[in-house]
């Protein structure tokens, strides 16, 4: 008798074995490559880039102008940076079986804090125009990141201490956060008049956009933390089985809180990039729907929403895929309205591919009973 569906545990090893058997036997290296978890995200990205190149002849061209690199690829990297940073924070949260839907609101709060503290005016000093900020920029940035981390701490305490479901715990901040951001900006769009601040979102370093370096730095630091220390293993252990992790002596609650704090911090960094890029802070619209894009990026990167194994590189790839998709839609001349429909289609396809049930039914459909007379293997 088949066990009831919800009681049947999914055999990951068995599923892999079946994939391997039905895989390409002639080229074992290819099937091994296809099993690598970054294989499908990379394929998607390459496919999208190729699609771009066919529709837009100048897609691969990079130009050196005014000491900076210009081109579609650089543009994609630059625009994907805030999403990638948020997705990195989200990856860790999802790895602990959690989810953080408040990141969009935290982006707005951090941007509003920084913009309010910097403000900035153009004054004439000794016949020269100079920008003067309300508070030193470093103080404003630290304050914005601290507020964002505080938001993360609030989420983390609700999840780990109070024991709320992550989606609900973060829903509270998602609802209230936009109100708080508008409270900070007093319902206005705060415009920043302070040139040094624009470097974060618009500046260049070594010919590349500054935001790309920020995203890369967050990635590298996180990667080292996860691979050079046991933290990555701990986070995976919590995601696979929180009770077992606690019994094994892991400080499960502390790690969970820290993961949410980091996610809030990452959202704060993204908030700085976004507000610096548009040179203003809009409590209502900054980072709108960013949480959904971030979750999508993590999912596209091969991290399962059920927690456990995670891939930081996958999430960065996911963010690049989303941004490339958006750029593709613009560059091939499709009206941008279709963007959401395409995104929906991508989400549907990805979640179906991640479903063991779907793969099993496709396999059953492909490997129908052989016709009578067909050679028996």
């Amino acid at each position, binding site marked *: 008798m088949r066990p*009831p*569906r*919800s*009681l049947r545990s999914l055999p990951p090893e068995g599923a892999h074995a079946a994939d391997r058997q039905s895989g390409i036997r002639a080229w074992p290296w290819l099937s091994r490559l296809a099993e690598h978890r970054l294989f499908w995200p990379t394929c998607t990205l390459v496919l999208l880039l190729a699609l771009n190149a066919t529709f837009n002849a100048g897609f691969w061209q990079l130009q050196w102008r005014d000491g900076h690199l210009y081109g579609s690829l650089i543009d994609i990297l630059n625009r994907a940076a805030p999403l990638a940073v948020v997705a990195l924070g989200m990856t860790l949260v999802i790895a602990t079986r959690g*989810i953080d839907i408040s990141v969009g609101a935290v982006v707005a709060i951090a941007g509003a804090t920084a913009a309010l503290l910097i403000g900035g005016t153009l004054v004439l000093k000794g016949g020269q125009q100079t920008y003067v900020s309300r508070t030193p920029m470093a103080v404003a940035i630290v304050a914005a990141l601290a507020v964002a981390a505080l938001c993360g701490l609030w989420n983390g305490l*609700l999840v780990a201490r*109070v*024991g*709320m*479901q992550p*989606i*609900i*715990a973060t*829903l*509270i*901040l*998602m*609802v*209230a*956060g*936009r*109100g*708080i951001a*508008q*409270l900070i900006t*007093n*319902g206005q769009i705060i415009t920043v008049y302070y040139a040094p601040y624009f470097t974060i979102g618009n500046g260049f370093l070594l010919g590349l956009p500054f935001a790309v370096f920020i995203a890369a730095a967050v990635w590298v630091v996180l990667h080292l933390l996860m691979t050079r220390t046991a933290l990555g293993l701990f986070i995976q252990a919590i995601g696979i089985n929180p009770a077992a992790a606690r019994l094994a002596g892991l400080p499960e609650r502390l790690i969970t809180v820290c993961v949410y704090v980091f996610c809030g911090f990452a959202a704060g960094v993204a908030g700085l990039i976004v507000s610096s890029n548009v040179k203003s802070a809009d*409590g209502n619209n900054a980072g709108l729907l960013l949480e*959904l894009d971030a*979750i999508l990026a993590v*999912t596209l990167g091969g991290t399962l*929403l*059920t927690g456990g194994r995670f891939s930081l590189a996958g999430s960065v790839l996911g963010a690049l895929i989303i941004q490339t998709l958006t750029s593709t839609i613009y560059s091939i001349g499709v009206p941008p*309205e*279709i*963007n*959401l*429909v*395409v*995104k*929906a*289609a991508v*989400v*549907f396809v990805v*979640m*179906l591919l991640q*479903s*063991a*049930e*779907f793969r099993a039914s496709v396999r059953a459909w492909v490997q129908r009973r052989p016709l009578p007379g067909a050679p028996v293997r």
Partner: protein
Amino acid sequence: MSGVAAAHPLRPRIDARVVPVLGAVAVFIVTAGFGSVAYGGFFSPQVFLNLLIDNAFLCIVGVGMTFVILSGGIDLSVGAVIALTTMVSAALVEQHHWSAAAAIPLVLAMGTAFGAFMGWLITRFRLQPFIVTLAGMFLARGLCYLISIDSISITDAGYTAIAQTRIPLFGDAASITVGALLAVVMVAIGIWLAHGTEFGRTVYAIGGNEASAVLMGLPVGRTTVLVYTFSGLCSALGGVVFTFYMLSGYGLHAVGLELDAIAAVVIGGTLLTGGVGYVIGTLFGVLILGVIQTLISFDGSLSSWWTRIVIGALLFVSCLLQRLFEARRP
């Protein structure tokens, strides 16, 4: 229960599951009472009926959402389905000159099919409701923009007639709209579905423990699909009421409404883990959200964003109470 009653002879016998709902009713009475004392003109039948009129769509959507949350799921697509409904209605009526009598059944069928499709995906492929309904939200909003990126206002005589219809209550002292009437009817249907049908009992069983429900031989798969189908129908009906309310179709209508609906359900005392809650609680959750908005507009000195903060705070308090309640449950 009898043991508890014996230990505390003076404590009235109240089922622990009713406590959160009673809490919601109490919060509503306290807030409304505060408003009546603090602001002149607040305590009138029309102000209270306006709560229902202005939040009729939220109430209808909340009824569907209650069933989804009772079954242990979540539906993030409701706001987008409302927007799609307004958009399709407006396009059919204004650009293709359909009559309201033909357009409304079509959009209702469309929303129902949309919900059924998501429910089928969730059940058949064991996908997470969060992701499926998220994709559904993208899809529905995207379809809105495919029809038009601008707002389409409705000037059709049939629609405006229904929108302006007022049903007098208490003599001529106050009146309600068709939308508010529909909301009351949907709450009644929701209560009947939850407590008077096999479907409702199965929903509670699934939310309580899905594995047990399967072992009991309950039609878990079919019921789950039906829950999302019902939520889709409620969203579409909410969209129809929203169309009457706004008399326009727009892809940015009802942005974030799914959060308000979830908040109303939770504040109304339904446990997010599923299995415990009442449809009538959701009605009070919606009324609480409405009364907060009314209070803030009556006050006049508070800015509109305080609504979001207060709703967040209420959500926090009710979630905290739920956790305490769960911890006390054996």
